[in-house]
């Protein structure tokens, strides 16, 4: 895969580049500021970009805004956001355009290199990868989406794991069920959420969106 890494801290950027290259992927460009990130994404159109939320010059959400702007220009550009903090608000903004190829993880996730690379590959393939912290917050109560109230407990947990970006196979392992059972659950929850397979939208992404949008 051709990857762009946008991170302002040299140590972390360098470490990530080495990690990615150790797994046999190619880092085509790095960026250290918001404008640089946008520029790099425009020029290189990578298979996936790793972007830090907080970057110079303003040291606020410069990176996040660069990623959103780049996705507005190049729809579906896969971006994995890595941040010191996971905010539901930011996750919702990223998913707002309804197309896939979005990941949002805590920076700690690079500690588990396999998990990190796996997430990168899933995002590059147009899927979603959400930090369990975001999903946990959504699951821990909150005014549940009226559409979600119709789901059974099992369907709920399947949707939660699906939102993290896991495949049916992994979900089946986690819940000690067969893969075909998971298939049945996903079909029934797509039906209950009113998500039809029209061949254009990523149904899993829409399910996550239904999850993130409370109203």
């Amino acid at each position, binding site marked *: 895969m051709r990857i762009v890494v946008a991170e302002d801290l040299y140590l972390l950027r360098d470490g990530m580049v080495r990690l990615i290259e150790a797994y046999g992927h190619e880092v085509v460009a790095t960026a250290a500021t918001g404008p640089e990130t946008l520029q790099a994404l425009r020029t290189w159109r990578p298979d996936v970009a790793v972007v830090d*939320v*907080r970057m110079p010059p303003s040291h*606020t*959400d410069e990176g996040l805004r660069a990623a959103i702007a780049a996705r507005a220009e190049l729809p579906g550009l896969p971006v994995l956001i890595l941040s*010191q*903090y996971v*905010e*539901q*608000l*930011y996750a*919702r903004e990223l998913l707002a355009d309804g197309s896939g190829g979005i990941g949002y993880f*805590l*920076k*700690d996730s690079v*500690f*588990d290199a396999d998990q990190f690379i796996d997430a990168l590959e899933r995002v590059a393939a147009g899927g979603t990868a959400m930090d369990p912290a975001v999903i946990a*917050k959504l699951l*821990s*109560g*909150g*005014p549940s989406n009226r559409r979600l109230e119709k789901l059974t407990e099992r369907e709920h947990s399947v949707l939660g794991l699906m939102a993290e970006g896991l495949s049916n196979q992994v979900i089946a392992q986690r819940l000690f069920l067969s893969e075909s059972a998971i298939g049945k659950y996903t079909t029934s929850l797509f039906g209950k959420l009113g998500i039809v397979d029209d061949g254009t939208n990523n149904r899993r992404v829409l399910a996550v969106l239904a999850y993130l949008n*409370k109203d």
Partner: protein
Amino acid sequence: MRQLRTWSARIGVGFSRACAVAAVGTVIPAVWAAAIALGVRWGPGNPWSWLAPVVIVAVGTLALSRPVCRAVRHLVARWTGTVVPAGYREAPPVTRMATGHWWNGFGYERTRRDALMDQKWRIRWNDPATLRDLRFTAILPLTAGLVACLPPTGAAAAVLGLGLGAGGTAGRLAGLLGLLTAVAVSPYAWRTIEPVAVRFLRPSSAMALAERVEELTVQRADMTNIQAAEIRRIERDLHDGAQARLVGLGLSLATAEKLMETDPERAKALMKEARAGATASLTELRELVRGINPPVLSDRGLVDAVRALALDSPLDVTVDADLAHRPDAPVESALYFAVAELLNNAVKHAGATRVRVSLTWGETGTGTGTGSGTGTGAGTAIVVAVEDDGRGGALVRDGGGLAGLRRRLAVFDGTLEIISPAGGPTRVTLEVPCASS
């Protein structure tokens, strides 16, 4: 005909008001007169004839000055709408110390009752407002009181001279004159009370300034304490949490380095442990930073930070925001933590299901009573209202969370008002004055 009715109504109202002012204004001179009369009656030679009047005058004046002033403030506010702030000093809370004694801000007492009594008297004697009240009770009978006496005196003369016919022709003439005076003066006589009260009863600018300085001193002390406590908390969290974990991480790595050649399996396990330790200390540091300065707040400002709070809350929270620009960072931070605490209260205490948060720019002093009355006039303020559908009955208690919020907002001259009838709903309004540009 209608005009006649209006006139007579004005005269009637004016007369009754003048009587009220005259009554209030002559209470203390009446006490003095009674005391002197008593002394005269006992006659010279009786030692009580000079001691008793002095005691009666002193005690009577001191005891009555405050009720008289309160009555005047009440009457002025009711008739003219002019609010004359009382400006009495407020008593600091009485707290029980670890020794079992009660501290009232001045000294230790054995029982709560003693502490309260002691505090009451000390505040009374030290309060410049007491002196102001005494001065006013001396001035009142000579100014507004004297003028207000005209209509009732005139009426009395009329009754005596015309009604009862006392004093013959001269008496009748005096009665007629009295009646005319009473009728002519009634609509105006009571009005002198307002300028006199405003001039002499209102805290002077020097007093207001002195009070403000005192208020700020207390606020500064409060703030210093709050900050010191916060720094201690952060230091303790770092010391017990992340710091200890990093030491452990270093130890694991050192051991792993040593074992690398002899026992690679154990070395690998230790490395894994070290990684878990690094993740845990990151989580702790993250929570710590969130408690000091939430990242969304610094990234996006108050409105989005409150929206993020709404997303994280287990309640159904709606946020209405109408803020075109961001307030100063310290104000933003204070309001953010205030909203966070109020949402938390709605979950923990109110048992609410829905909460409405609104953030707007408004005018200062639009709320009911701005507390100390030392506001700097109308200006722009940021107004945050948090309304829940819970069971209500929230109170600002000493040492409680709401009192703490109020103290923190007071540093910015902000106010916290709470309307929370038993059975709900609860509405808390925070208002912090700040420049709108």
